[in-house]
C-alpha cells in the first residue's frame, strides 16, 4: 500500500457512502412495466402490420425474409373490362398472408422491400402466447395491427414536397416518407 493510498483510505470510504446516499435521494430508474406502460419511441419495432388492400401478392417480402417466416398464397382472377370493348385484366387475389413471429427476427427487411406500402411497423409488443403456434399471425390479425401504426414522422424542413399520389384504394393508411429508389433485391 503506497502512501497515496493510505492518505485516501478514510476519505475514500466516506466518499463511497456519500455516493450511495446521494443515489438514494434520486428517483429510481426502474420501469414498472406491467403497471406503467413504457414510453416507446414511435418507430419501435413491435409487430408488423399488413394493409391488405395494398398487397399485390408480389412475394418480394416472402423472398427477402431471411428466415422465411412469411407465407403467401394467392390466385389470379380475371377482371372483366371496365369499358365497352376493353380488354380483360388479370388480378392477383391474396388468399393467405401470414407472418410467423416465432421465427421473425424483426429485421424489417420485408417492410423495406415492399414496393406497395402494404407492411408497416407497429410499436405494439404485447402479443406473447402460451402456445408457440399462436404466434403465427394470419392476415386478419396482421390487419388489426394497422390501427396501431403511428403516423409517419414529419418531413424535414425544406424537404422537396411530392405531388400527393391519388390513392383511392388505401382508405386511411399512413403515407410513409419512403425512399422511392429502394432497390428491391437482385
Amino acid at each position, binding site marked *: 500500500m503506497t502512501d497515496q493510498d493510505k492518505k485516501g483510505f478514510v476519505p475514500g470510504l466516506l466518499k*463511497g*457512502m456519500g455516493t450511495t*446516499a446521494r443515489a438514494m435521494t434520486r428517483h429510481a430508474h426502474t420501469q414498472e412495466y406491467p403497471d406503467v406502460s413504457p414510453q416507446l419511441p414511435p418507430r419501435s419495432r413491435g409487430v408488423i402490420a399488413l394493409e391488405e388492400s395494398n398487397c399485390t401478392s408480389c412475394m418480394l417480402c416472402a423472398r427477402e425474409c431471411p428466415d422465411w417466416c412469411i407465407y403467401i398464397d394467392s390466385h389470379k382472377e380475371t377482371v372483366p373490362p371496365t369499358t365497352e370493348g376493353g380488354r380483360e385484366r388479370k388480378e392477383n387475389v391474396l388468399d393467405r398472408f401470414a407472418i410467423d413471429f416465432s421465427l421473425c427476427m424483426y429485421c424489417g427487411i420485408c417492410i423495406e422491400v415492399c414496393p406497395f406500402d402494404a407492411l408497416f411497423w407497429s410499436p405494439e409488443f404485447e402479443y406473447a402466447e402460451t402456445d408457440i403456434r399462436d404466434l403465427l399471425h394470419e392476415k386478419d390479425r396482421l390487419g388489426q395491427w394497422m390501427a396501431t401504426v403511428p403516423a409517419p414522422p414529419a418531413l424535414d424542413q425544406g424537404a422537396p414536397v411530392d405531388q400527393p399520389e391519388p390513392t383511392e384504394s388505401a382508405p386511411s393508411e399512413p403515407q410513409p416518407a419512403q425512399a422511392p429508389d429502394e432497390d428491391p433485391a437482385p
Partner: protein
Amino acid sequence: MSTFGEVVLRSLCVLIAFLVLPLLVGQTEHKLMAHMQGRLGPMYAGGFHGWAQLVADGVKFTQKEDIVPLAADKPVFRLAPALGIVSYLLALAVIPFGPHLVAAGITGSLLWVLAVGAIGTVGTLMAGWSSGNKYALIGGLRSAAQLVSYEVPLILAAASFAMAAGSFSLVSIAHAWTPWWLLWQLPGAIVFLVAGTAELQRPPFDMPVADSELVMGPWTEYTGLRFALFLLAEYAGIVVVSLVLAVLYLGGWTGPFDHQIGPFWVLLKGFFFAVIILWMRMSWPRLREDQLQRVAWLGLVPLALLQIVLTAAGVVLTT
C-alpha cells in the same frame, strides 16, 4: 407455576423478537440497497411495496429439497445451521430494552453476549469442514482466520465499555451512560461496529463467502431451510450487534420520555446502527484477505488498545 409461566412468556417474547427483527432488517436492506442502486427493490409480495418479500422467500426456502451431500460429515452438516441460530437467540435474551425490561437479567450479560456470540461462528466452521467441498473448506478456513483476528478488537472494545461503567451488566452499563461517552468512547464504538460487522462476515468483510471465488463459502452445499437458517442467523447477528452497540454506546433506553417509550429508543438506536452496517455493505468493495488481516491487526487492535488507555485514564481521573 407462575415462575414457569413467566419463563415461557419471556422466552416467547425473545423468540418473537428473534423472528421479527431480522426480517425488518432484511427488508430494510432490500429497500435501502435498491434505492441506493437506483432501483425499487421488491414491489409485489404482500401488495404494499413488497413488504412480505422475506416471508415469501421463507416459504420458498421451505419448499426446497433438503440435500445432504454424499461426502459430507452428515450429523455435523445437519447441526451446523442450528448453532448459528441458537447463539444469537441466546444473545438476544440478555439485551435490555429498559431498566427492568430484559428477558434474562443476568449480571455478566456483556460477557454472556460475547461468549454465545462466538458459538455462532463455530457453526460456520462446522459447515465449512463438514460439507466435503473444497470451496466450503477454503471458506471455512478464511472465516476461521477472520474470526480469530476480529474477536480480539471486539472484546477489547467491549472491555472498554465495561471499564467505563465498572460493570459487566448491560443494564448497569446503560445506567452509567452519560452523553460524554459519545466522545469518550467513540474509538471503541467504531472498533466494535467494524469488528462486529467482520464477525458477521458481512460485506465488506465477506471474504469467506466471496461468491466470485468460493461460490458461497461454507454455505455452498446448503439448500432449503438450512440455508435459510444461515441467512436468518446473519440478520439476527446484525440485530444483536446493533442492539448491543445501542446499549453500550448510545445508552440504550436513555432519551426523552424514556419512562414511557424506553424500548422504542433501544430499537431506534439499534436500527441506526443496523442501517450503518447495511450502508457499509452497499458502499464499499470487498477486502482482500491480506487487507482484511491488516485492518484487524494494524488498525482495529491498536485503536482498541488506545481506547482502553483512554477509558482507564478517564475512570481514574473522574473517580
